[in-house]
Every structure is written in C-alpha cells, then in structure tokens.
C-alpha cells in the first residue's frame, strides 16, 4: 500500500534532523496559522500563488532562493564545525549523517538557492529592461516557478521522512546505484532535481523566446542592456544542457528502479558515461549561474559610474564566446581519470580559453569606471568585492585547468576553495548586488545602506577567512568530503576556517537586520521617483513598485541606453515628453495551473521515491487532467481600462516632473 514507506522512515533515533524538522514544521505551521488567522489566503491566492506577473514570480523565486540559501548555509556551518571538531575524534555527526549534509548543501545551493535567485532576477528584470509587459509565456513561467518550489519541498521533506542522498551533489555511480545506496536518499535527489530541472528547462525556453521575440519597438539586439544579453546566453545554455541533465537522471532512475545497466559496474554498464554526461550539463550550469551575475555587474558598474558600459559590443562578444566555449570544457572535471595527454591538453586549453572572455569582461568593467563618478553604494561595493574575489577564483580555476597541477589538487580542499571562490564571489555577490539594486523597483523603497555595507564587509572578510585556509589545506593534501581527519597539523587552519564561518554568520545576520530595518523605516527609504540610482535602462522608466502592466505605453527606443536618452532629452528640454494617448492594455489572466501542476508533481515525486505506484499513477493522471482543464479555458486575457492606465501613468509623470523641477533648480544654482 505504502511502498517502502513505514514509521521507521522517520529518524526518531537521530536527534539533529528530528529537532530540525520539528522546529521547521512548527515554523511552517505557525506561518500558515498566521496567514489563516489574518485572513490573507484570498489575497495570497489571488495576487501571488496564481499570479502570472513576471515581477511577482521573480519575487517568489528570490524568496524561495533566499530561504534555501539559509538552509544551505546551515548545512555549511555544520560541515565546517564538524571538520573542526573531528580531528582525531568522531565529531558530532556520524558519516551517514555528515554525508547527507554535504550532499544536501551542494544540491540545495546550486539547484534551490542560486538557480531560483538567478532566475528570479531574470524574471523580474528582463521584461522591464526590454520594455515589454510580460515574458513570452506567462503561465508557463508560473508553472516553472512552482515546479522549482516542488523540488525544493521534496529535498526538505527528506530531512524528516527517510534520508537525503549520501553521494555528493552529483551522485556518481556506482556509488549512487541501488547496490551501494539502497536507501531512498538518491531517489529524493533524483526526483527533486528532475522536477525542478523541468521547471528550469521551461524557464530557458521562455526566456530565449522572450529576449528574441518580445522586445519593445526600437529595441534592436545591439540596444539591449547587457543584462538581457547575459539572460539570453544563460537561457540558451539552459535549453542546450538541461535536457542532458534530464536524460542522465532518467537513466540513473532506470538503473535504480528497474535494474537497467546504464551506469552499473556489472553487465557492461559504464559509470564513466555518467561522469561525462553529468558534467556536460554541470559545467555549462556554472555559466548559467554566473553569466546573469556578469550582467548584473555590468548594469551596476555603468550606473554607479554614471557612464555607459565600456566596450559594449566586446562585452556582448565575450558573453556569447563564454556561452559557446562553456559547452566544450566538461572533461576538466576528471583529468585524473586518465583520458590521456592529448585529451587532457585539448580540454585544458579550452578551459583556460574561457578565461579570455572573462578577462575581457573584467577589464571592461574596470574601464567603465575610468572617467566616471563612482558612487560607493552597496551594489557597487559588492561589485568591487566581486572583482577582487573573482579574479583570484578565476586564477585558481586556470591553475586547475593545467592537468599536471590538477593531478595534485583535484578533489582537494583547494578545489572546494576554488569553486566557492567563483560561485560565492561571482554568483552570490552578484545576486546580493542585484537584489540591493532592484529591490526599490520591486517594493518601492530602498534597502538600508548602513546595514547593507556592514553585510558586505562581513561577507567579504568572512569569505576570505573561511576559504583561504582551505586553499592551503588543499595544498597540504587534504581531500574534500572528509567526515573526520586524522592529521593533527590541519587543526589550526580548520579552526581558522571555522572562525571565518562565524564572520559569515554575522554577515548573514546583517542581511536579515537590513531587511527588517528597511521594512520598518520604509517611509524614509521610499523611492518616489522610480529612479533611485540614476539608472540608464528602461526598468527605471517605470514607477516603483512597477505596475503589473509595467509600461502604460510601450516605449519606443531611440538609442543604446534607452532610459538614459529619454532622461537626457527631458533634462535638456526641461519637460517630459508630451502625454501619450492611453489605450486599454491586454494582460494575461491569473492561473492556478502552476500551483496545481506542482502539487501533483510533488505527490508523484514523493510516491516514486517511496515506490507507492498507485499514488504515482494517480498523481500523473491528475496532472494530465489539470492540463486538459487548463487548456479548456476560454478567457486568456483581460483588459486594463485606459482610465486606470492613465491614472497610474499620471502619478508617475507628476513624480518625474517634480524631480525635473528640482534638477532644473540645481542647474540654475550652479
């Protein structure tokens, strides 16, 4: 009846997951209770859960990503403290628990923290920058989000029911095969990642179509903001490589569930094929994360230097160059499998060639500041911290691309330090910068500057105190994923690294405080004009928060920096462009289909994990029925009346006029 599921699946004998999950469940129940008590359900359902507005979906993605970032960070704290405590000692986490933690840390950070945050910003910003009202497929967008949430939910369910994978974030067979991992942990991994991966694939399709086919009049390719180019490159990579992930995980599932022999170490199965396939997805995945971050930095360097981006075309070229070469480097993850000198040489060189594209970008950002008026606001601090951190991370990356050097530090703490160096220094710093930068556009008020700066400095210092020792430990021969170490000499550096985690915790607390303080003092941080940073691209042409239809009248772009040109003209002529004729706007209607699909995806996934076949069948049938019902609806759009559009836009215009007047007075004074 219930497959493999029984009461013994609940870890009553293991206090740490038990207490964590009880606290988690109580928190969730508390939040749900609060929502019920306050009567917020109709609002949430109407305005968020069923919303197909790209901005709302983007915010929900970011919320999901932030919560998962904290969850992943908690895992990281446990890992670092376990290693610091377990020197010639067992520590406090037995291997079967510790192994789940590092597997969950990697899985959560990549799939459920970094990806949702990146996709969230992509969602929020791209249509605004392109001057359109939504993405190409708004309802599909909602489905994508909810599928990602479904995957995240499954990972967290594994804390309380059963176990998570004990195989690392990429479950290399044969270890992940049923023979060596008979528990449900790998199954949780497979279905959580599979479900969210489908969501990501649809996001990729959606954004390729959006960027290529949904741009406002005049927005030719070479007028698109840099961020949109990076979104296009990342989405192209998603479309090209996420199917590989789907296929690979499907093959591993067939092995585990039905005794197929894709990757087994018996009957001719080929585990190395998994390694090739998973990295053919896995390496481009890193660029899927980091390219949009590069786009964010491009926007920030230009805005906060008060200058156009230096070498825009060369930046576009570098982005697309990285996009293409990213798919030709995967073998550098296993130089040490003995592929031979010729293969290693080819992949080593192709890997280091990527550094050309990245290097060009770094210099272009630096020269964007040349001749500028650099304002050290929080987003800019993150960006400068990024250059410092990422350049060093890139350097160690090229070191690892040199096969003989990789022979010494492959799979070592040096490697761990390297990829945190680029992912934290590149992606996470970029995300924090982007969130700080676009927060006013989402909520209408800025984030508190002081706490933001504190968060930055603690994060930067904490990062280096945590990971610099790991570089050295790697050179001392310490491999990754050790549950305990037997070498006393490593103690000082492991302790130092733990101190770094402490600093990072302070930084994380600062972020939370920043958010709370900003909400409490939102009135004084209010962004009245909709253009808090003196921006240059179209999202700053809208009021803050942006109305659900984004633009009352679709902009007509005349130059390379769409909004900057409009602003210059207005300042020059001391008046806004004449009021346009407002017309009704057609917007897509809300749809519960995303939530519905994800609900049944979760049920089906859970049923498959525990091999409750009837429930899996039921879930699939219900999902299909849901699609048919959705396909049957007749109303796809509704009209926003012209008066409503006019009312919103006149409010925006009056705020801008006030700003213009102020600027004019300033101009007269000087």
């Amino acid at each position: 009846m219930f497959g493999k599921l029984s009461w013994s699946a609940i870890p009553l004998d293991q206090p740490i997951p038990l207490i964590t999950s009880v606290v988690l469940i109580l928190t969730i129940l508390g939040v749900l209770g609060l929502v019920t008590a306050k009567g917020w359900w109709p609002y949430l359902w109407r305005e968020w859960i069923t919303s197909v507005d790209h901005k709302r979906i983007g915010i929900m993605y970011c919320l999901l990503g932030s919560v998962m970032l904290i969850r992943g960070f908690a895992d990281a704290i446990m890992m670092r403290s376990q290693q610091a405590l377990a020197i010639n000692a067992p520590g406090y986490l037995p291997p079967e628990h510790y192994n789940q933690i590092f597997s969950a840390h990697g899985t959560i950070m990549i799939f459920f923290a970094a990806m949702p945050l990146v996709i969230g910003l992509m969602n929020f910003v791209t249509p605004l920058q392109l001057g359109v009202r939504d993405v190409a497929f708004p309802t599909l967008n909602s489905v994508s989000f909810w599928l990602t949430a479904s995957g995240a939910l499954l990972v967290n369910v594994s804390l309380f029911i059963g176990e998570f994978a004990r195989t690392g974030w990429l479950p290399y067979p044969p270890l992940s095969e049923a023979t060596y991992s008979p528990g449900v942990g790998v199954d949780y991994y497979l279905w959580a990642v599979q479900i969210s991966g489908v969501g990501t694939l649809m996001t990729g399709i959606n954004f390729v179509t959006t960027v290529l086919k949904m741009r406002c009049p005049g927005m030719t390719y070479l007028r698109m903001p840099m961020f949109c180019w990076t979104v296009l490159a990342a989405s192209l990579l998603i479309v090209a490589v996420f199917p590989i992930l789907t296929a690979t995980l499907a093959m591993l599932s067939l092995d585990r569930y039905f005794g197929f022999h894709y990757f087994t170490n018996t009957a001719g199965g080929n585990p190395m094929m998994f390694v090739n396939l998973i990295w053919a997805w896995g390496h481009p995945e890193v660029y899927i994360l980091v390219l949009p971050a590069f786009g964010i930095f491009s926007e920030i360097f230009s805005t906060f230097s008060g200058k156009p981006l230096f070498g825009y075309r060369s930046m576009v070229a570098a982005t697309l160059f990285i996009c293409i070469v990213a798919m030709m480097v995967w073998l550098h993850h296993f130089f040490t499998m003995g592929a031979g000198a010729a293969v290693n040489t080819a992949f080593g060189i192709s890997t280091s060639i990527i550094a050309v594209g990245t290097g060009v970008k770094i210099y272009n950002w630096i020269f964007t500041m040349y001749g500028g008026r650099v304002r050290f606001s929080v987003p800019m601090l993150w960006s400068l911290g990024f250059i410092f951190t990422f350049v060093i991370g890139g350097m160690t990356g090229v070191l690892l691309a040199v096969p003989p050097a990789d022979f010494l530090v492959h799979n070592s703490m040096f490697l761990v330090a390297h990829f945190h160096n680029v992912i934290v220094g590149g992606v996470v710093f970029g995300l924090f910068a982007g969130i700080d930068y676009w927060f006013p556009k989402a909520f209408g008020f800025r984030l508190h500057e002081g706490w933001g700066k504190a968060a930055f400095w603690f994060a930067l210092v904490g990062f280096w105190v945590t990971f610099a020792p790991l570089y050295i430990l790697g050179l001392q021969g310490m491999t990754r994923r050790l549950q305990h170490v037997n070498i006393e000499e490593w103690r000082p550096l492991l302790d130092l690294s733990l101190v770094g985690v402490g600093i990072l915790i302070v930084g994380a607390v600062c972020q939370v405080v920043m958010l709370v303080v900003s909400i409490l003092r939102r009135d004084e941080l209010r962004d009245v004009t909709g253009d808090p940073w003196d921006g240059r691209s179209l999202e700053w042409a809208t009021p803050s928060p942006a109305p659900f239809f984004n633009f009352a009248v679709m902009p007509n772009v005349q130059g390379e920096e769409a909004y900057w040109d409009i602003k210059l003209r207005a300042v020059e002529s001391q008046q806004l462009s004449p009021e346009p004729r407002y017309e009704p706007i057609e917007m897509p209607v809300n749809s519960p289909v995303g939530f519905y699909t994800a609900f049944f995806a979760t049920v089906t996934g859970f049923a498959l994990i525990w091999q409750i076949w009837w429930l899996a069948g039921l879930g699939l049938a219900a999902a299909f029925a849901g699609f048919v019902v959705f396909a049957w609806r007749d109303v796809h759009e509704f009209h926003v009346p012209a008066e409503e559009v006019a009312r919103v836009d006149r409010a925006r215009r009056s705020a801008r006029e006030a700003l213009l007047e102020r600027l004019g007075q300033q101009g007269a004074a000087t």
Partner: protein
Amino acid sequence: MARRAAVGLAAAGLGGCARGVLDPVGPVGADDSAIFFDALMVMLVIVIPTILLAFWMAWRYRASNPKAEYLPNWSYSGRIEAVVWSIPILTIMFIGGIIWIGSYRLDPFKPLPSKSPPLEVQVVALDWKWLFIYPQQGIATVNQLVVPAGTPVHFSITSASVFNVFFVPRLGSMIYAMPGMVSQLNLQADRPALLFGQSAQFSGDGFSDMQFQVRSVAPAEFQAWAQAARGAGPMLDPAAYAQLMRQSQRVSPVTYGGVDPQLFQAVATQAIGPGPGPQPENPSHSGREVSTGGRR
C-alpha cells in the same frame, strides 16, 4: 630562481609543516608542483596589477574627487579594446603551452625514465580499504604500501566497487580507481620516507578512513621485507578476498604472504563480481539503510 623563492615562501606559509603536495619526495610530485608554481606565477603577474588597477580606478574616479575628470560619454577606445583582449589571450597562450607540454610530459601512464626496472604494484580499491598486490614478489598488503626508494613504481589501478582516487600527496599525481577499468600511474620516491596516502574521491560512509601508510624504504630493506612477508601470514585466497570485499572501515594494515597471480586481472575484468555494498543489519530501517560496516 623566482620559482624556488616562491616555493620556499609558500612552504613557509604552510607553517613549517609542509607535508603536502608542495613538499614532494619524488620526481613526479616535483614536476607537478613546479608546473603548478610556473602557472601561478604567470598568472599572478597579470592578476595582481589587475586587482590594483581596479581599486585604483574606483578610488581615483570616486564621485567625491573633484580632481578626476568626468567623461560621461566615453565608452569605447579601440586601443584599450585591443589591449584588454590581447592581455588574456597572450596569458592563455602561454598557459596553453604549459598545459600542452606538461600534459604530455607528466602523463600518468608514461613510464618514468630510470636505470632500474620498475616495481609493479597492482592496486584494488575496496569498500573501504586499499589492496596492494605485488605480482613480482607474490605478496599483497592492505592499507600499507611499501616501495623501494629511488626505484620507479608502476601502479595498475582498478576498483572492486565504486570510484576512488589513488593519491599519495607527496609523491605527486593522483588517478581514479574505477570498476572494470585499469588506470596506470608511475611514481617514484627519491628517498626513504613515511608518507600518507588516501582516497581523493568520496566513496561512501567509510571514505574518511580510506587512508594508507606509504613507506618508502631503501631497496635492500624492501627486498628483505618482501622476502620476509612471502609465505608468512595469511594467504589471499578466494575466500579471503570475498571476505575482504565486504564493506569494512578503519582496517588495520595486513600483509598477505601469498596471492593468486590472476586475482587483479579477474577483478579488473569483473570476472570476480564487484563488492556487495551495504548489508543492512536491520531490515526494518526502510529507506534509511545504514551499513555500520564494522565501524563499531
């Protein structure tokens, strides 16, 4: 010379306990780390000025600096573009050369040049210990590798269960141990030393203790050790191997006085099936099967 200085500097930075990859005791490790430092130096030459330039640029053109001129429309310069593309390209061409030469010269499969014939060692990664077979000597050890100093050692490496990586940090290159495949590695210890080796690929619950002792001893001492071991102690017969394949953790070093000469071949071609994986001691633990694997 700069490199020697850098090695010394880095070694000093390791707090004097440099027993890692920066303190090699053999030619492979020495060459690997030399390449590591060559590449590092080449890049530092670029990276350090770049970081300084970034900070200087941000500081020089800060909004509060009235002395810096403001060029609000300056966004292109063909000369600078040419330079910023050529700096990384030239660096990478240089690194590419290092990669090319290094990959061929330090290919792990390539025999080491030496007057003395290499010692053959066959390595089998098991859950969770290392089996070393000395076919020329007809003996085998577990979790203990004894090699003669100054003699190249040719390792043939396979796995009888999951992926592992054979790694002796101070000897140099590591390589994967994979089921159904044989990878080769050539290493040499130049002087007698006591080293540690380990697995560098996570392989399950007992992974952390998958370490082994490496004793590099004088050739004569090695001969004496091998002769003493031969015929003494337990034999690695099929029954003993079947027992050895079962999962176990923290296995103390064992020396087998005799071994089937075809054993390695049989494991590598999977004529002997792979290790059985966890044997759940409590079948009711559904979904959370834990193998204690002799941990207690």
